[in-house]
C-alpha cells in the first residue's frame, strides 16, 4: 500500500465517519446520499409503505377479473383485495381509482353500466376489508379499452376486469 492509497483510504473513512456522525444529529438535512444499510432498515411495525407497492406480490396484483355479465368478486381475488385494503388502512393518504371494464359483447352504453358495477363491487370489497370510501373512485370505461382486441372467450375473460390504479401512494 503506497502513500497515495493510504491517504485515499483515510479520507474515505473520514467521510464515512462524518456521515455517521451527521445521522445522529436530529436536525440533519434529508439529503444524505449514501445511507448505511443498518440505518435504513424499515421499522417493522407491520404497516405497508409506498415501496411495498412495487415489491410485495399481492400489492403488485392490480387486476380483478369477472365472469360473463357478472359483477361478483370471485373468491380467488379476496386475498389480493384484502392486501390492498390493508394498504389503504396503513396509508390514509393513498388513493385508488378503480377502472371498470367489460367485454365487447352487447351494447356499449350498457357495458359502461356493467363496468361501473364491477368497479363498485371491488370498491365495496375494499371498504369491507378496511379501506375507506374517500380513498376510492370508480371510473367505468365499458368495453372501450380492451387489453385483448380479439373476439374469443380468452380475450373476453381478459377484458372483463377492474384495474386498481394508485393515484396517490
Amino acid at each position: 500500500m503506497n502513500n497515495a492509497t493510504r491517504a485515499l483510504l483515510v479520507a474515505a473513512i473520514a467521510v464515512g465517519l462524518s456521515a455517521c456522525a451527521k445521522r445522529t444529529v436530529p436536525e440533519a438535512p434529508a439529503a444524505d446520499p449514501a445511507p448505511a444499510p443498518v440505518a435504513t432498515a424499515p421499522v417493522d411495525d407491520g404497516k405497508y409503505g409506498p415501496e411495498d407497492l412495487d415489491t410485495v406480490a399481492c400489492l403488485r396484483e392490480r387486476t380483478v377479473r369477472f365472469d360473463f355479465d357478472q359483477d361478483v368478486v370471485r373468491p380467488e381475488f379476496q386475498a389480493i383485495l384484502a392486501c390492498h385494503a390493508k394498504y389503504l388502512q396503513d396509508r390514509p393518504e393513498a388513493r385508488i381509482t378503480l377502472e371498470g371494464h367489460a367485454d365487447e359483447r352487447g351494447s356499449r352504453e350498457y357495458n359502461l353500466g356493467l363496468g361501473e358495477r364491477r368497479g363498485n363491487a371491488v370498491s365495496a370489497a375494499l371498504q369491507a376489508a378496511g379501506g375507506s370510501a374517500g380513498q376510492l373512485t370508480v371510473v367505468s370505461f365499458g368495453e372501450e379499452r380492451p387489453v385483448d382486441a380479439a373476439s374469443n372467450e380468452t380475450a373476453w375473460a381478459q377484458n372483463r376486469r377492474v384495474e386498481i390504479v394508485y393515484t396517490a401512494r
Partner: protein
Amino acid sequence: MTRTLASLVLLAVALLALPFQARAQALEIDIVGGNAAALPITVVPMPYLGTNVAPDTDVAAVIAANLNRSGQFRTLPEANIIEKPIRGSEIQFPTWRVLRQDFIVVGRVLDAPDGGYRVEYELFDVAKQERLLGLAMTGRVRGMRDIAHQISDQIYEKILGVRGAFWTRIAYVTASGNYPNQQYALMVADADGFNPQTVVRSREPLMSPAWSPDGRRLAYVSFERGNSTIYIQELTTGAREVVASFRGINGAPSFSPDGTRLALTLSRTGNPEIYVMDLATKALTQITRHFGIDTEAVWMPDGQSLVFTSDRAGRPQLYQVPATGGEATRLTFEGDYNAKASISFDGKKIAMAQGNRNVYRIAVLDRSLAQPRWQTLSPGNLDESPSFAPNASMLLYATKEGGRGVLYAVSADARVRQRLVLTDGDVREPAWSPYRQR
C-alpha cells in the same frame, strides 16, 4: 338472379376503381346480397355538355349506387345500357321494354351561369311512356355528390311515394391502435360514406354520437377528462360545450324531437338512471329510479315517452316510460338480451341489438300490427348499434369482421346490405342524421 349478382359485383368493382385519393379518404364500399323483387330502373350516363372542366363526380353513377343500396331498386349495369339517350325525346321505349326496365332516367350536365354545374334530368315510366319528373338541379363544383343525392331522393319519392334519405349524413367513431396508443375520432360523412370529415379527435375513448333534430349539432360522450363526459358540438363552427360531467357515468345522450331537451344516463346517485335535461336551463329531471342499469334512452317521435334499456328483470330488455317520469312498461319479451333501441320516424318500428345465447343480431319489432312482428336484419355474431335512416328505409349498424369494426347499411327488408369499411382501424357507433335542410 345471377345477373343481379353479376351487376352488383360490377358495381362494387366500379366503386373500388375510384381514383386513389378519393378511396383513401372515403370508406370503402361494397354490396352484398341483392333483391330480385326490386324495381328495375336504368340510369343512363349523364354526359357533360359544358365548355369548362367536367365535374369529377359521375352523377348518374352516384344515383345508380344510391338506388341499388336502398334495396328497392335494381339498376341496369352500365355495360347493358346499349343506347345512351340524354333527353326524353331520344328514348326508344321498345329497347327498354325488351330489357324489362320499369323506369329510365336520362340527363345531362351543363355549365351553370355562376360557375357551378346544372344537371337536367328526366324520369320516365317505360310501360306508360310517361314522363314522371323533369327537373334541373344546380350546384357548386364541389357539391355535385350532394346534387346526385338530391336527385336520387326525388326519383325515390316520385316512384315509391316515400321521401328519400340519400341526401343525409352519418356520424360514426373510428378507433386505431392499441391502448395506451389509441386514437379515436368522431366523424361525419355522407350517407354513402363519402366526404368523411373529422368532428373531434381524442386519445381517450369517444362514443354514442347523437344528432340534434336540425342536423346541426352532435351530442357525444368523450373520456378526454378521464371520465365519461357529455359534450354538444356545433358542426359548422366546431364550438362545443360540456353538458354533463358528474361523478360516475355520463352517457347515452339523445335529443328530444323538438331539440329542447336531452335524455341522458347519469350514475351520480351510484347507479345508472335515465334523466332528461332542459337544454336551455340545464335543469335535470330524473326519469327512472331503479337499482338495475337503466340507459340508452331514445325518444318516441311524439316526444311524450322514452324507450330505454334496463336489466331490472335480470338481463337487458327494452322498456318504455313517460318522458316526465313514471311507471316503465316492458316492451321486449323475445330474445335473451335486447338493448340500444332506434325508433323509426313513425314510431312503428323499434330496432335493437338482440342477443340469443351470445349471438348478437339486429332485430326489428314492428308494433303497428295487431300482433307484434319480429324481423332479424343481420347475420351476427357481434352486431350492435342500429340506427334508422330518417325515412326508415334502411338501417346502419356496427359489427366486427376479421378482427375489426365495420359498418353495414341494410335495407329495411334485410335483402341488401352494404359494407362501409375504413381502410385502417375500427369503425363503430353509427348514427344516421335527420333529413338535411337545403
